[in-house]
């Protein structure tokens, strides 16, 4: 079993963020423990008097090289298609990758993606040769439109970024899986616990992208390992085929020759 991102086959189904860790060393330990092969990162305004930015970038490159991982730059902070396209172009020059995690935020309160701007940006970026991984809401029609544009990977949210609330709308997410059987579906944002990630995999999702749930754990590296195992368990369960739910109880122990069995009215 592997995760397919625009033709690149990856053994790990976990995509991991590089932000919010208590220290660069803890970040490294967590990324290595996660066994993830995709690490997300971003761009910010450079402060010429601050050397730490370059040091972090050098460190990240080291980690990615050690882990044979891929970089996935994002367009965090963008609110219009134009901003996202410009940031994607800047990212491509720096990170030497056509992959872009496309974020276009429409609401400051819950950081909900703007579906209109997202579609505009996705179209322009695809026409510009990018391989777009759009972060979007769990709206089936939006996901379908993104797929029709040429987004082979779609990343609906589980819940708002950083909330850890898990899968808010399992029905929506299952429907997207059902209706887009050939898309690579990665659940992105809002994952809080390994069981959330496992549930997504049991639904047939191809992968999970998360950051806060690992970075904000008391022991990020241990949590990263837990997520890795949860994803494997969920993917194996989906492949094995989950039993259908039933309305009534069915005894698992054979009832024939049950000891001490008696008719209710037997005296």
């Amino acid at each position, binding site marked *: 079993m592997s995760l397919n991102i625009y033709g690149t086959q990856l053994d790990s189904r976990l995509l991991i963020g590089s932000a919010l860790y208590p220290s660069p060393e803890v970040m490294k330990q967590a990324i290595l423990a996660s066994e993830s092969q995709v690490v997300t990162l971003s*761009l910010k305004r450079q402060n010429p008097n601050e050397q730490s930015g370059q040091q972090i970038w050098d460190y990240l490159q080291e980690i990615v090289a050690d882990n044979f991982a891929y970089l996935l730059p*994002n367009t965090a902070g963008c609110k219009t298609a134009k901003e996202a396209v410009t940031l994607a172009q800047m990212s491509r020059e720096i990170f030497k990758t056509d992959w872009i995690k496309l974020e276009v935020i429409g609401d400051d309160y819950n950081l909900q993606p703007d579906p209109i701007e997202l579609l505009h940006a996705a179209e322009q970026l695809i026409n510009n040769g990018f391989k777009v991984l759009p972060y979007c809401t769990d709206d089936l029609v939006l996901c379908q439109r993104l797929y029709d544009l040429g987004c082979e990977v779609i990343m609906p949210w589980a819940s708002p970024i950083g909330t850890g609330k898990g899968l808010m709308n399992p029905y929506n997410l299952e429907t997207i899986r059902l209706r887009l059987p050939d898309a690579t579906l990665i659940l992105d944002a809002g994952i809080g616990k390994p069981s959330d990630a496992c549930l997504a995999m049991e639904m047939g999702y191809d992968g999970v992208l998360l950051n806060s749930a690992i970075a904000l754990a008391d022991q990020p590296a241990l949590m990263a390992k837990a997520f890795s195992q949860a994803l494997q368990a969920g993917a194996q369960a989906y492949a094995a085929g989950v039993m259908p739910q039933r309305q009534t109880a069915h005894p698992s122990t054979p009832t024939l020759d049950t000891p001490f069995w008696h008719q209710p009215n037997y005296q």
Partner: protein
Amino acid sequence: MKIHINGTAYPLASKQSITLTNALTLHFAQPQKSTFAVALNGDFVGKGDYEHTIITAGDSIDVLQPIQGG
């Protein structure tokens, strides 16, 4: 007259124009030692175009560098 680089204003003589390469030296002394990309007035400018890109008063330049992200 001024130009802005990452929100900081730098004076530019009236009617003076400079290349983007020159403008970046206002921002940092040794750009070759940093990893960065540039946008001019919201549009991406590739590294190969710095020398041919003319900056005039009122222009706004963004210089971005890698950072951790989710």
